[in-house]
């Protein structure tokens, strides 16, 4: 074991990659599922070990193939990406038991093994973006995860899934291209691709080549913003979430956008922020304005959606607004709020999408007008939905409250009391769209069409209940969420120029 421990960073990536490769050769979905189950449950333990090491003894640097950075590719784990690695791998692992029946129900038998292959490939891509300390390597992993995502979305049962996947393919490619152009500009100026090295060299270069650096910053920001679905670059997200298989939607909502947000934070605070005073640039103001627009416009759209997957998708766009708001605040409480919401939103939104997956499994629909009184037929599923839903609203006693608490303090520390009112006012809209569902499923007379519907089998129910319980748990215990987010925020802000 001790021989392996220095290689944990690469094992984090290579194990799911090999798993994906093997699963691609399998015929039977159930065998691929078993393989995935084993592989994916190793992930949180590796990530946990890495996070623990980063917390106790500082950042870990791993030179890929023995080539010393900055010449070779460096994997670098500090508190921030250790936190994200753990979040992504834990979400991937917690929801996997749900997959067996859900995938068997939604995806034709011949493609189930491919599904698991793509799922593992997507996971290793996302973990790769997070773990790498190399700007170009991040692009490679971005493409790996994106290509796998396109396939996963296109596997949706509805034919519109193909269109949604195509739409995402086009926009995702534009995003990735923008990102790589931005990295090109940076390379032009600094001659390096290692993020820490870029940060070192960017400062001296900023004096005479500031235009190239700003162009690089702009391209990177826009490119990543497309991937993280920052309003108004979110147009791919609602369709992709609505038509993807249930498990994929839950997985993407908890991981893909979160990793993109991580990359943005990394570039803002660890790469550009170290060299130039980006708080003086209009970047933060633009981000602030777009975040607020997302919080309100996307929430209002969510209120009028009848398809609950689309409703939650728009809600995601709004909630991403909270996270980017915290980034734009760029102070201790604000950034902590943004990062802790990255964690909390992943937990809550995954719970919500999984419970919709269970509803789809039983009824074959998630249209609100067909779910009257469902709470009496599927009480535990809908209870979990309500708990995670009120978490989104930010009710005290749930994880969502902790996020809003930090964000509000961050806004007040800046002296922006109006922003505090905007934050709480937009959670009121969340109350409307969640309350609407709660009312229909719990207080309308039960529709006679779902005679036999009950809570799903334990393998599907358990992940839902675990995530709903986590929504409450992280409302009371913030050791893992807010404490680590605060540590990460402190490090990030401490490095700023």
């Amino acid at each position, binding site marked *: 074991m001790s021989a392996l421990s220095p290689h944990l960073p690469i094992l984090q990536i290579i194990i799911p990659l090999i798993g994906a490769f093997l699963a691609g050769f399998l015929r039977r979905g159930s065998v691929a599922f078993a393989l995935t189950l084993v592989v994916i449950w190793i992930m949180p333990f590796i990530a946990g070990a890495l996070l623990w090491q980063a917390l106790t003894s500082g950042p870990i640097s791993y030179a890929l193939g023995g080539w010393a950075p900055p010449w070779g590719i460096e994997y670098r784990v500090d508190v921030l990406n250790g936190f994200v690695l753990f979040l992504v791998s834990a979400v991937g692992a917690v929801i996997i038991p749900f997959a067996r029946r859900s995938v068997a129900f939604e995806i034709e038998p011949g493609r189930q093994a491919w599904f698991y292959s793509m799922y593992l490939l997507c996971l290793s891509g996302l973990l790769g973006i997070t773990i790498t300390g190399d700007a170009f390597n991040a692009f490679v992993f971005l493409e790996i995860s994106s290509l796998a995502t396109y396939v996963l979305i296109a596997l949706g049962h509805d034919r519109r899934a193909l269109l949604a996947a195509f739409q995402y393919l086009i926009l995702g490619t534009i995003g990735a291209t923008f990102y790589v152009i931005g990295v090109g500009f940076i390379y032009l100026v600094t001659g390096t691709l290692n993020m820490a090295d870029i940060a070192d060299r960017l400062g001296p270069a900023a004096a005479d080549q500031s235009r190239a650096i700003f162009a690089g910053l702009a391209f990177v920001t826009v490119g990543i913003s497309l991937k993280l679905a920052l309003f108004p670059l979110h147009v791919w997200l609602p369709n992709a979430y609505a038509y993807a298989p249930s498990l994929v939607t839950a997985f993407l909502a908890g991981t893909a956008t979160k990793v993109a947000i991580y990359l943005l934070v990394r570039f803002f605070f660890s790469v550009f922020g170290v060299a130039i005073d980006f708080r003086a640039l209009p970047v933060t103001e633009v981000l602030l304005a777009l975040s607020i627009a997302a919080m309100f416009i996307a929430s209002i759209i969510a209120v009028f959606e009848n398809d609950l997957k689309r409703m939650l998708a728009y809600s995601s766009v709004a909630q991403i607004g909270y996270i980017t708001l915290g980034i734009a605040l760029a102070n201790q409480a604000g950034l902590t709020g943004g990062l802790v919401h990255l964690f909390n939103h992943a937990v809550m939104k995954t719970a919500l999408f999984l419970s919709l997956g269970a509803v789809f499994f039983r009824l074959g629909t998630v249209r609100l007008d067909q779910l009257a009184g469902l709470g009496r037929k599927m009480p535990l599923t809908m209870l979990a939905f309500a708990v995670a839903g*009120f978490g989104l*609203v*930010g*009710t*005290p*006693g749930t994880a969502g409250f*902790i996020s*809003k*608490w*930090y964000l*509000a*303090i961050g806004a*007040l*520390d800046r002296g922006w*009391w109006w922003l*505090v*009112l905007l934050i*709480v*006012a937009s*959670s*009121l809209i969340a*109350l*409307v769209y969640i*309350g609407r569902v709660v*009312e229909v499923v*719990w*207080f*309308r*007379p039960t529709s006679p069409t779902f005679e036999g519907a009950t809570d799903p089998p334990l393998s599907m129910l358990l992940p839902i209940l675990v995530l709903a319980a986590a929504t409450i748990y992280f*409302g*009371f*215990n*913030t050791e893992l969420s*807010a*404490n680590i987010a605060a540590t990460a925020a402190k490090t990030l802000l401490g490095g700023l120029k």
Partner: protein
Amino acid sequence: MTPLRMPDSLVLIAVALPFLGALLIPLFGKHPNQREAVTLVTAVALVAAVAGLLAPVLGGARPEAGGFEIAPGLALAFQVEPLGMLFALVASSLWIVNSIYSIGYMRANNEPRQTSFYVYFAIALGSTIGVAFAKNLFTLFLFYEALTLSTYPLVAHKQNAEAMRSGRIYLLLLLGTSLVLFLPAIVATWVLAGTLDFTPGGVLGGKASGTVIGVLLALYVFGIGKAAVMPLHFWLPAAMVAPTPVSALLHAVAVVKAGVFAILKVAILIFGADALASTGQSGWLTIVAGTTVIAASVVALRQNNLKRRLAYSTISQLSYVVLGVAILTPISMIGAAIHIAAHALGKITLFFAAGSIHTASHLTDVSQLDGIGRRMPWTMGAFAIGALSVIGIPPTAGFLGKWFILGGAMQTENWLAVAVIVVSTVLNATYLLPIVFRAFFREPPKARTPEHGEAPWPIVLALTATAAGTVLLFLLPGTPLALSKLMLGR
């Protein structure tokens, strides 16, 4: 760590008991008698636990429990101070009476979903005790929201279109005001004062300018929507669609009193009464509270539906407490605290009577009540006593609170407040006494169908008990008075 002393563990027991009851009740869902026994046993145990805290609190102790820190500023902690003691005592002892009443009411009216009714009721009571014993603003806020969420299903209990619409108003207004106004006020308090603990003398003194204090006060007063200060009162009449036991205990006692209790507590223990007085920011509060008192009474006059009339009366009476805060004298704040207890007893009696009439005769409107006192002498007798208390006529408890608030207003020569109290008393008499008159002195309509007598005995027992309590509290006001004085540290 020292082992928990007895009163300290009693605090946790008191908060946990109703939640425990809520877990046990569904286990007996198929056996109504055992199910109701669980509710009653829980209620009695709760009163015993709360009463066990009374002597230490009167002796100057402040039993504490919890102290679990979630994040900086956010601690889950309980501390029993005199005002919370008074509130918990009122809410828990009335829960016993109300449970007896519920048994009679729910069964006689064949209400559906009785198991979930008792479950949500127990959760609501647990949340109320949590509000009462909260050591800091966060804990209060947590249980305040839990109280809203647990009473929402009770408001929507009938599950028809009207109940759902009312439930929507209820949830949006109460959760909405708390999230949009109350929460920012708490965040601002934390940023300004660096603590959220309820502290004698307040924590905001000298920490902010008069204007900021004024804005914060406004955020608290309107953010605590449960106090039903106009114009944020709509949820209360809407909530009357719930079964009468809910209106009686929750929407005349637990929920609404949690609102005014929170305002009183914030005024005394967060702002500090003296600090608030020195900023001169309470003039507008007198006007807002006074307007609510008068306007709600006028609206009550025009309501023909008995429960709606009582609801508007509650809105008016709640603002007496806010008025007591706005006058900003020790004596008026003591009056406010006593009014919380006194109005609880009087108003629950009136609602019990309204539900009793509904159960026995299916009548809901004031205009239908001619001569009903001859058929239901106990009910209407209790109603008369409750009415006297709400108006504020001795020998009923309602007199005490009003007397102290009026005294405070006179002392500070706040003539506006004096006028409000006098005019309101006249209005109270105008909307309540004609009902008593009708019931006893008008001839019943000849074609009354069908014959009926009193409501089932649990209902009669409950309303007689609360009516007696109203008189008893006037005769023996020692405990509430002592607690109210201790609340101000004297």
